[in-house]
């Protein structure tokens, strides 16, 4: 059997001193190592952001609680949102993209390995800047304060007048810096996909994960940059006496909202599209069928990318736009649900007629489908702007977006972890611990986020450090908080699985899942150079063709 590995004679691969190892990691330009660095730092901030969430949930367990002061609470929800979006979700997805894209296209590395490293470290520096505010930022209440302006920092709350000191500046700078890192990674992903595909891999033969990361990267270029521009404007206001968002000088608070959401809405698609990518790789393998409707999946993704650029003001239905503007954004927001729904149908279509294997990656994927459907439907509810005039800024919308981010993105990520961890480490994650993780997290998730819709319907606004008794919110909030703790336990199980399996997991071999894309043709973990000889492909599932030479995909595409 020919193995696509250049073997190293026994005896040469000796253990290195740990300083050496550390140095290798810090100076690496290898996409696989950078991918792991992104993922590891995201996991660290997931735990930190999770602690912030638990603090919020303890405070809200019952009315008039005083577990934390209002000042601390306001910092917690600001930091929780900022951390989770910018220093957990984006890095972990960039990490997986970094790791998988070159492997799936048969390339040696990303197009610009040094830019890749630079982008990672910029992103990590951004995270450090944000958390440095705990030491350095002097906000409204003295030194050592995290920002407390919410993760959107609406004008004029973010202005010097209402946020003196430096807490807000750490927020602004951290996002500006990590934003540049994101742009660097996006450029790298696009150049890699367009320029480094192996022979035979035409655009319509790329794995869907590669397609979707290409679309995501394109969106990053157009979505992150408006935020960067707005951050620069905010800094000019705060430090150079500018008036971009200074309502006293004729400036517009609404303009900040437009700029922020022109970033903010495409951003959530930037986050979900790579998760669609994971689902499009995992569901076919565990259904033992190719993805149903590959060209439609590509077209729908591109369609989502374009339409999602036109929906941003559905975050602004309450700010007093005229009825024509509200109607327009209602229409576009409902419209973006069409290509999104098509994808859900295609995934179900993939499972239909298959032979489904309920391994842990597939459990998370099925839960994803169920939860993403619900999240999409609550989104359609809020797309109807009059309904949104009640639901917006309440716990209903908090429930909705956590349904997408936790129920959708995080579940898909867990699936991706269980699926690709064997490739990255050479070890299988424990199925037993995986199932504990899955069921605990599922129960906790639904306890928290299903129930959370109800206080919203009962009039509970978001971002409040406490609430009045007698509104009917107490018991509901208690249940929500209990669910949060169950999720926390599940995360601990997950982390334990990651660590224990690294040392004791079963040997993975090249291709533990009997899958069909190029990364499964090389060893686990892959050698530094990825492929000893550049592969050539003739279809969308090169390994299927190899395993089934009597019935290759290339005959049907």
């Amino acid at each position, binding site marked *: 059997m020919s193995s696509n590995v250049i073997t190293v004679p026994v005896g040469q691969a000796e253990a290195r001193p740990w300083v050496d190892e550390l140095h290798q990691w810090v100076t690496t330009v290898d996409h696989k190592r950078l991918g792991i660095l992104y993922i590891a730092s995201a996991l660290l901030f997931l735990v930190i952001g999770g602690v912030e969430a638990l603090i919020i949930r303890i405070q809200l367990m019952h009315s008039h609680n005083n577990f934390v*002061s209002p*000042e601390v609470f*306001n910092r917690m929800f600001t930091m929780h949102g900022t951390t989770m979006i910018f220093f957990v979700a984006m890095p972990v997805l960039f990490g997986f993209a970094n790791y998988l894209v070159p492997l799936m296209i048969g390339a040696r590395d990303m197009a610009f390995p040094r830019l890749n490293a630079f982008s990672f470290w910029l992103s990590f520096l951004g995270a450090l800047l944000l958390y440095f505010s705990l030491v350095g930022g002097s906000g409204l209440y003295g030194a050592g304060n995290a920002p407390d302006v919410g993760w959107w920092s*609406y004008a*004029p709350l973010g202005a010097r007048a*209402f946020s003196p000191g430096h807490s807000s500046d750490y927020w602004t700078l951290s996002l500006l810096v990590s934003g540049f890192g994101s742009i660097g990674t996006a450029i790298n992903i696009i150049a890699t996909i367009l320029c480094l595909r192996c022979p035979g891999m035409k655009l319509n033969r790329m794995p869907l994960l590669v397609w979707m990361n290409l679309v995501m990267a394109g969106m990053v270029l157009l979505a992150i940059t408006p935020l960067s521009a707005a951050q620069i404007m905010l800094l000019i206001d705060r430090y150079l006496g500018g008036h971009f968002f200074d*309502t006293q000088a004729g400036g*517009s*608070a*609404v303009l900040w909202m437009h700029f922020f959401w022109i970033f903010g809405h495409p951003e959530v698609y930037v986050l979900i599209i790579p998760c669609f990518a994971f689902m499009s790789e995992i569901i076919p393998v565990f259904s*033992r*069928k190719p993805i149903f409707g590959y060209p*439609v999946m590509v077209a729908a993704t591109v369609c989502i990318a374009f339409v999602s650029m036109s929906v941003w003001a559905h975050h602004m239905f*309450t*700010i*007093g736009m005229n*009825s024509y503007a509200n*109607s327009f954004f209602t*229409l576009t927001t*409902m419209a973006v*649900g*069409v290509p999104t*729904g*098509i994808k859900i*149908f295609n995934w*179900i279509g993939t*499972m*239909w*007629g*298959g*032979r*489904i*294997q*309920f391994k842990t990656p597939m459990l998370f994927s*099925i839960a994803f*489908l*169920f939860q993403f*459907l*619900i999240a999409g439907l609550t989104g*359609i*509810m809020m*797309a*109807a702007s*009059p*309904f949104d*005039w*009640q639901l917006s*800024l*309440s716990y209903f919308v908090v429930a909705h977006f956590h349904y997408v981010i936790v129920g959708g993105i995080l579940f898909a990520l867990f699936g991706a972890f269980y699926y690709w961890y064997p490739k990255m480490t050479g070890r299988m994650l424990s199925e037993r611990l995986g199932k504990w993780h899955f069921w605990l997290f599922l129960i906790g998730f639904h306890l928290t986020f299903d129930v959370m819709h*109800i206080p919203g*319907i*009962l*009039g*509970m606004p*978001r971002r409040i450090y406490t*609430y009045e008794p*007698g*509104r*009917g919110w107490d018991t509901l909030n208690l249940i929500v908080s209990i669910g949060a703790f169950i999720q926390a336990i599940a995360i601990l199980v997950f982390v334990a699985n990651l660590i224990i399996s690294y040392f004791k997991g079963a040997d993975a071999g090249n291709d533990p899942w009997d899958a069909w894309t190029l990364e499964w043709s090389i060893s686990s973990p892959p050698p530094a150079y990825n492929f000893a000889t550049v592969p050539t492909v003739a279809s969308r599932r090169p390994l299927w063709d190899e395993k089934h030479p009597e019935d290759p995909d290339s005959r*049907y595409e």
Partner: protein
Amino acid sequence: MSMPQMRSSTLPFLARTILLLFLPAVTGWASESGSYSPGTNIFAPASTPAKSIVDLSIFVLVITGIIFLVVVSLLLYSIVKFRGRGMDGGREPAQVYGSMQIELAWTIIPILIVVVLFLATARVIHATQDAPEPAGALDVIAIGHQYWWEFRYPKLGIVTANELHIPVSDPGHPTPTFLQLLSADTDHSFWVPELAGKTDLIPNHPNRMWMDPQRTGIFLGQCAQYCGTQHAKMLLRVSVDGPDDFASWVSVQKKAAVEDAGAIAGRRVFEQNACMNCHRVDGTSADGRFGPDLTHLMSRSTIAAGAAENTHDNLRLWVQDPSAIKPGSLMPAMKLSDADLDAVVSYMETLH
């Protein structure tokens, strides 16, 4: 002129009634006391804007509910029917790549659903936002502050704070309240769920909303746009009054402050400390605009925008140290001596 009337939904009457009973009951069951409508349930509307939202929302919920049931059924069916059983001997199922007809079907049907939903929604948007103001309407200007509400009735010459009194509106002869929404500092949002959807108060961006409550009573709400430290305690209390009650409230509010000879000492404390820099008491030299108008303080049942009941002890504590009740409030502790404190509170308690 025509006020937008509540339209009966296109759904069968039965379905709509069931849902209207079901939703408040479910949300009420899930709530604390077991009896529903604690005052902020969006499915217990008492005013046309809120009612038309409920009607629309039921339509949307039914459609999304149907979509949910269909898709989840397909998902569950596929999990059960197509699960791999034990050792399949490594046989792979038929490798199906797609189907253009199916793709077209599940593209066109959602597009049609979107068109229907959009048209239903656009109607309500227009009816609510573009409703003309009738002659009998009451005008109120609401100005958002960190962390309290200023209400001005320009045609009546009234200024008050935090507790809004408006007349009940008879559908046959409507007397809605039209609010102009402004802000003195940062962004806020006026949300009284049972009366209307929320609308933001944004500096340099005046907004407009209306409500026509069709039953009397107290309606609760609070600020919904994060505005700073005490965003959570910027509560709203709307008292919908019958015509007589409203008229008598107005006549009291129009008067200048009560002059009680027994409270002269306290009034002096009020005027000689910085109180008058921020607060107004009509008929005295206190004409500050930064804080709430206190002319008829005792006509309000709460203080500090709902953060505390308007009792002697709370009032005293508030003046002594606002951060004991509402830390982060912009009212400074005046550091009065106990004697001055008691005097000024006695004075404030004469401001009916």
